[in-house]
Each structure stands twice: as C-alpha cells, then as structure tokens.
C-alpha cells in the first residue's frame, strides 16, 4: 500500500532486511503485466494526441480556442478538492474513534462503514435517489412534519453529487487513515498531558503531525479517484455537473474523435500528476519538520 511508503517518514526506522537476494524478481511478473497492459496503451494514447488525425499540436490548439474544455477540467478539479476536503473532515473522526474504541466496537464501526462499500457505485447512487427524490423519503418526512408545503428539489445539484461522492469514497479514506493512526504511540499523548499541555495543544502539536502521513495517503486516493467519476454526476448532477471523464468518454464513444480525446486525457494526466506530486511534496515537508 501507498501508506507504507509514506508512513516511512515517521514510523520507527525499519532495518533494511532482505529475505534473499533475488526477492526483487518476484515483482517482475507484475512489472511486465503493467508494462504490457498499462504503460504501452497509455503511451500509444499520449502519442495519438499529437498524431491523430495529422501530426501537430492542432488538438491542443483546439483546447485553447474553445475554453469550455479547460473549464470542465477546472470544475472537475474543484469537485475533487471539495470532495476530498469533505471526506477528510467526515472520515478523520471515524478513523480516530476506531483506534480508541474497544476492539469489538471498532470492528462494528468499520463493518458499518464497509457494508455499503461492497455494493456497486450504481446501486448506491440509485439509493440516494430513493432518499432524496421528489417523492423520496426525505421529502415525504418533511411534508409529513409540515416543514415544507411541496416537494423540494434535492436531486440534480452539485451538492448532491458531492454528498454522494463523499459517501462512496469514505472507506477509501478511513482505511489508510485508520492504519496510520493505529501506529501512533498513545503514550506520547499521555506524556504531553503529563507535561501540562492542554488537550487542543496535544492534538495540534503531537497527534495531528503524527497522523499526517495516513491522512495524506487517504486524501490522495480520494482525490485521484474523483477524476474518474462519471456515473454519479450523470445520475445525480444537474446541467453544469459535467466532469472531464464524461467529456473524454464522449470524444471516444460519441464523437469518434480519438485524437482530441487523447489530448484531453493527456492534459488530465499531466494535471493530476502535478497535483499529486505537489501533495507528496507537502507531505514530505510536513513529516520532515
């Protein structure tokens, strides 16, 4: 997992131990597989963006001439940032609670979090429609209580999409954070308290810095996943909730404009890589402090 690599900054230094000298060879099948089914196709696609239909930068030029595509990319980024932040705010206390609760209770809490995780994204998205729809449970309850006089349109807003994405991505955040928090030596907190630090200071100066590696791993996974979303925005979003994944898919499936689709994918890939590298850099600086 990624958190192992990241957590390396703060966890006790692990002595480099080798099972046997050829252990690296065991990774070879996976490396070969990734090279064949991932690196090569992606490489071909990147090349396509410069060669289809003719060699040149015309696909990228089109992106500059019609700002709508970069607008969609910007919207997708904003969606990813909002969803990642909201997931972190909702997920961190859950992960923390699971580390301090009695093991049996923690198992139940994690179980509750993961049961919906086993259902598909489509089913969970539809479930939200049942709750939030015009004739849904929420509207029914509000009408019954006399709080509203006619159904409120809860569906088909950006906030609906964000809510659904947070709910879908929460387990991806909680698990690495929980794994990270469990490695924190709680006696450090007792020591800080014993030395007179108030609870807020203990959290800010001791607990939070130690939890950052796990937090960054969880946030990174959520952030990257956000860029691939298209079902949830399609079903729950309104007019403006178009994500870059939806636009790229339209180029390949609807427009048969593979060159332009490849160019959009290349820009998305580059932007995502830059964002991820920036996050990793921040994470590293924090853990070195």
């Amino acid at each position: 997992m990624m958190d192992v690599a990241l957590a390396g900054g703060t966890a006790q230094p692990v002595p480099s131990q080798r099972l046997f000298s050829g252990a690296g060879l065991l990774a070879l099948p996976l490396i070969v597989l990734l090279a064949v089914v991932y690196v090569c196709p992606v490489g071909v696609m990147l090349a396509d963006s410069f060669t289809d239909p003719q060699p040149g930068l015309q696909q990228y030029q089109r992106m500059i001439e019609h700002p709508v595509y970069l607008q969609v990319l910007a919207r997708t980024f904003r969606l990813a940032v909002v969803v990642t932040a909201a997931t972190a705010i909702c997920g961190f206390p859950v992960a923390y609670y699971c580390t301090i609760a009695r093991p049996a209770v923690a198992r139940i809490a994690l179980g509750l979090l993961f049961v919906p995780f086993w259902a598909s994204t489509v089913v969970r998205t539809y479930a939200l429609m049942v709750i939030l729809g015009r004739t849904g449970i929420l509207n029914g309850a509000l009408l019954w209580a006399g709080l509203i006089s006619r159904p409120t349109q809860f569906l088909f807003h950006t906030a609906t999409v964000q809510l659904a994405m947070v709910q879908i991505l929460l387990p991806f955040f909680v698990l690495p954070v929980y794994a990270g928090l469990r490695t924190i030596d709680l006696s450090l907190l007792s020591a800080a308290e014993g030395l007179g630090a108030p609870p807020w200071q203990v959290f800010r100066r001791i607990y939070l810095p130690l939890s950052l590696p796990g937090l960054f791993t969880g946030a990174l996974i959520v952030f990257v996943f956000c860029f691939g979303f298209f079902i949830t925005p399609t079903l729950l979003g309104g007019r403006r909730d178009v994500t870059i994944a939806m636009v790229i898919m339209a180029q390949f499936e609807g427009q048969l404009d593979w060159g332009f689709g490849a160019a959009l994918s290349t820009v998305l890939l580059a932007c995502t890589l830059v964002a991820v590298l920036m996050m990793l850099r921040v994470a590293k600086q924090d853990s070195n402090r």
Partner: protein
Amino acid sequence: MIHIHRRRFMAEAMAAGLTLGEARGQTLNLLPDVPTIPNRLKGSGQLRVANSGGALAEAERKAVYEPFQNLTGIEIIETEGFAIPKIKAQVETRNIEWDTATLGYGNSLVLLQDGDYLEPIDYSLIDAPGLQDQYRHKYSVSYVTVATVMTYRTDAFATAPVTWADYWDLKRFPGPRNYMSGSQGIGVDLWPALLADGVPMDKLYPLDVKRAFRALDRIKDSIVTYWATGAQSAELMADNQTVLGTAWNGRIGPLLQRKLPVGVSWHGANFVYDDHIVLRGTPNIANAMKFVAFCCIPEVQARLAMLIDYGFTNMDAAHFLPPERLRMLPSAHLAEGFFADQIWERDNRKRVTQAWAEWILS
C-alpha cells in the same frame, strides 16, 4: 468499484427497474412463425453478432436469433453492449471479433466518414419487396425505426401536453423536466427547441442552431437533469423525478404496460433507424450477409415488433401484426413526426456538439 464499466452500468440501471416485464411473456406465444427460408440463406459454422444490449437485445434473442439458428444451421455467438469505437479498433488492428453488429444509421455515416470500416451489403441475397428504398443503404440495412418522443406524467397535469410548444410552456405545464444529455454517446437534439419555437416539421433542416439555443435558454432552469442512457430517461419518469421529458419510444413502452401514470405524445416525434452492418475484412462475411438478409424477412421483423416497441422497415411485416400492436409502433405514427436529416446531422456534428458543450456549462 469506481471505474465501473459503462455496459455494466447500463445493465444494472436496467435491473433497477426496467426489464422486459412478464407482460411480454404472453405475447411470446403469439409470435408469427418464420416460414421455410431459401437455401441461399442456409449455412454452417458460427456468426459473431454484437448488439446494443438491454431490452432490444432481449427481444432480438427470441425474435431473430432463435429462428435464425434453427433455420439456417448457423450458430450465433452474441456480444452485448457494443460500442462504435470497438468496431473502429477491430478493423484498424485487423483483429475482428464481431462479424456483424447493430448501429444507428447516423452513427454508421459518421463511421464511414472516418474510413472503410464496413463491407458493402450483398443485396442479391435480400428478397424483400416490402423493404423500402430509404432503408437500403450501401453499407447497411435499416431493420428497426426508433422514435424520440415527448413523455409526461399523466398525474401532473389536468390536460395532457401534446406538442413541443407545451413542453416549453412553463406556465401551463410547470414542473421539472428531463432532456437528452448530448454527451456520452447521446446525440445533441436541437429539433425539439425549433419545433417548440414554431418551425414547421418540413422546414426543420438545415437546423437553425442559434435559434435552437435561444429557445433552450428560455427553459434552461426547468430542465433539472440530462439523461445519458435510455434506461435513465424511463426511470426519471417512472419515479416521478420529472414531469416532462424526452425518450426513445421503446423505453417508455414497458412503463405503459406496467400501467404507470406516464404518457407519450407522438406529435413532432423524430424517427431514426437502427441498422445491421458487416465489419470490413471479417473472415465470416458469407454468414454475416445471410444474417443481414434473414433480418429483412417480414415475419422476422414482425416477431421483433411484437417484443419491442420499435417499428419495422419491411412494410409487409404489418400483415403479421395485430392492429392493437401496430398502434404502439413508430410505424403507425410516421405522419405525426419526421425523419431526421442524417446527412446534415453528420456534417454538423462537431460544430453542434461544441456549441452544446458550451451552452450546458453556461
């Protein structure tokens, strides 16, 4: 997982409520039999067929594939949920996995613009006087007609909306609406806006793109969602999430049979065809052409029209259909709607899609 496959998405969306109901079970017994077929359509071996999945594929299995296998001796290997890019990729890499596929006529025109991806149809095998010229193309044969129609909730209004102008009338017909998304493989449909704005059906083409967007601007805030799959357009009406909408007529038929409070107006319906095509360079071209010819037989088309609410292209199929069934099909409503100008649509596709993408974000 997150990167769920589109095909599975649609399959699950269908399973969520919209499969061919038991209601269809009764009609199965009434399917007309296919007569003996000429020897030139018989053969051996296999045929790999790709279809668009969902309700249409379910109907094709019973109506077409079963008698084809029995009568020709050719075994069908079916792939569900095909996509045009895969045809392009298969022909380009000369790695043909499907011999024949179904494709919207408009999409076949777009594909042909990109290159020689299709085999010319062998009309010497097709003996179908009822198959009109408008359905005989060089590289494809149309086998069903599909209508894009206006849908509404019958429980939402005192008087039923009829025209596209009614769809646009927010005062007389208030409430949330759905519209096609114009992305993810769903074409951009500007014609309802022009019909609502007073353009007569026979003067629609060439479409006045600017005027259409001005008309769409007027109801922008009342269109709460834009559907990306046929299943979604039906689900939104069945669940009463929207009170007015657009849909392919075949998707709404099952709702009518379930007696849900959903209505269809055929006024200003847009008719398009779905075609059979043969992939360029398939080693199985002989069987593929036999299959295409088999699908033109009137009894075969009538069987399909019994199982799904799409129209036939061989007019002789009408002889094998009960009158109450005929009324449900686009074939009975051709006078109320119009046929889209697929050539114009193809030639303006890029420009229209670009304008749509800009409009939808504004």
